[in-house]
């Protein structure tokens, strides 16, 4: 980790709703300029954590510092230096795209003239210039998401927090968004994002934590997590429903570890092709087989025993 003072620092951070513990004492630090991810399944506590960072949800216990400030005391100051893309778009559907950006700038007390200039540049940045005077209502999901991102940047924030920025978008729209986020990172902004998507985390995050049921179960750079918790390659085999379990012993004999999913066997090994050849030699012939590189999905499966996205 860099030697600069952390931009965000959480120690024993906890969030309770009534009796329910949504975030159960987590520790993490985010350095300036870093791109940091929260990865986890539904209900893991990602949004609850993001909302505490966003100073819109009081911390139940533990300590949280953003820019070295305490959200309880200096929420307003912290929020003025931060851009937020919420999990669900909070745009004004009846107003135009440009109006949405300008009113939001006014919340930061940015003058209307300045707001219009910045809005023009940002709409350019998210490639929505031609939609400036359209109302938000008829825009596609991906376009609305890009408006949300443009809006979060109108105050030129040092820190950007994005809650599932690309959920629900088609692959092409996701790639456009990733590219924009990558540019922001290159501009030296600090990004904190949540996602269910492994590829997104691998593409965008310098470092990430895997959350499950309110706790952090692993932390590190995506590649390091894969090296630590998984093998170089994975052999995926399908034998047909219900038959996968019959071949566990065979698979185990040629690999480091095996996971059984309802529809396939995952065989963890550094050389998937060799493992497949060895299995063929024992007359174990799957209906289909595929060798791929290990991903964060495998890390998650290893750590929690569950898949992240079905």
């Amino acid at each position: 980790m860099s030697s600069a003072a952390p931009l965000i620092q959480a120690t024993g951070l906890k969030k309770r709703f009534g009796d329910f513990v949504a975030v159960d004492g987590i520790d993490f630090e985010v350095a300036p300029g870093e791109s940091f991810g929260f990865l986890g399944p539904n209900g893991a506590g990602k949004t609850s954590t993001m909302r505490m960072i966003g100073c819109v949800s009081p911390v139940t216990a533990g300590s949280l510092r953003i820019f070295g400030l305490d959200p309880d005391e200096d929420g307003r100051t912290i929020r003025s230096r931060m851009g937020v893309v919420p999990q669900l778009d909070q745009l004004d559907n009846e107003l135009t795209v440009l109006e949405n950006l300008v009113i939001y700038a006014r919340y930061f007390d940015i003058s209307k003239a300045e707001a219009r200039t910045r809005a023009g540049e940002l709409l350019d940045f998210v490639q929505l210039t031609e939609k400036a005077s359209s109302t938000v209502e008829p825009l596609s999901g991906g376009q609305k998401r890009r408006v949300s991102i443009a809006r979060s940047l109108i105050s030129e924030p040092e820190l950007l927090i994005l809650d599932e920025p690309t959920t629900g978008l088609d692959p092409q729209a996701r790639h456009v968004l990733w590219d924009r986020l990558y540019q922001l990172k290159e501009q030296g902004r600090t990004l904190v994002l949540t996602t269910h998507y492994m590829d997104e985390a691998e593409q965008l995050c310098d470092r990430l934590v895997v959350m499950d049921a309110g706790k952090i179960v692993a932390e590190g750079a995506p590649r390091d997590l894969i090296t630590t918790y998984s093998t170089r390659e994975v052999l995926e085999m399908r034998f047909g429903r219900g038959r996968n379990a019959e071949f566990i012993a065979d698979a185990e004999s040629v690999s480091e570890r095996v996971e059984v999913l309802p529809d396939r066997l995952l065989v963890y090994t550094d050389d998937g092709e060799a493992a497949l050849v060895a299995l063929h030699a024992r007359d174990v012939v799957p209906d289909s087989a595929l060798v791929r590189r290990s991903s964060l999905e495998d890390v998650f499966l290893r750590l929690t025993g569950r898949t992240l996205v079905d």
Partner: protein
Amino acid sequence: MSTPAAVRVAYRDWLLYRQVWRSNAVGAFVQPLLYLLGVGLGIGTLVDDNAGSTVILEGTSYFAFYATALIATTPMFNTSGEALWSTMDGFTWGNAYRAMVATPLDPRDVAAGFVIRFGARAAIASTGVAVVLALFDDTRSLGLIPAVFVGVLCGLAFAMPIAAWTSSRAQADSFPAILRFGIIPMFLFGGAFYPITQLPDALEVVAWATPLFHAIELTRGAVLGGLSTDLAVVHLAVLTAYIAVGWIACVRTIRRRLWP
């Protein structure tokens, strides 16, 4: 130079209002005109000089008696609707208030924006009535100007407590009941159609507890005279108390809603 937060919140309301202002402004003028022609003049000719009405109404025409109440009742209806459905939209369907409190604005600023929005809506509504009343001999008076101000207070005395209620609701299912069993009975029994002294004693006490009765006494007094300063102060104090309690409740419920 920084602009007060409430004004910046209300800027959004202005952009939305701008889309409907024509019909809203015309409605603010036409609706009281219809009420007045229908109820004020129609019933007025039946009532005036009958059944001791001259004594009960202390010499004013029924038209003037009823018309001056509209300066209070019209903003009441207007802002109550606004404080229910339009406010709910900002918490649920559109989530605009959630977006606001993720910026340097806080729940108090959102509530302060409510004061401007409801105040402006009430001002438009009571001004519309006042303009219509200026057309008629019985009600043409400089007292219409302070009466508009009372109309604004009346609108806020309803809207702020109602908005506090709205902010605490997950669903809008209770809203029609608020209109049916809260607002409309006040309209009927709050002194708009006849002096509350005509009511059974128990109901008269209830009328005293409602903001509408006090607002009507003030608008009527401002335009037609006959209201003592002491009583005027009491009426203003009650309206102010409703607004103050509504404000405090609003800040709390908004905070609880948006910052769980």
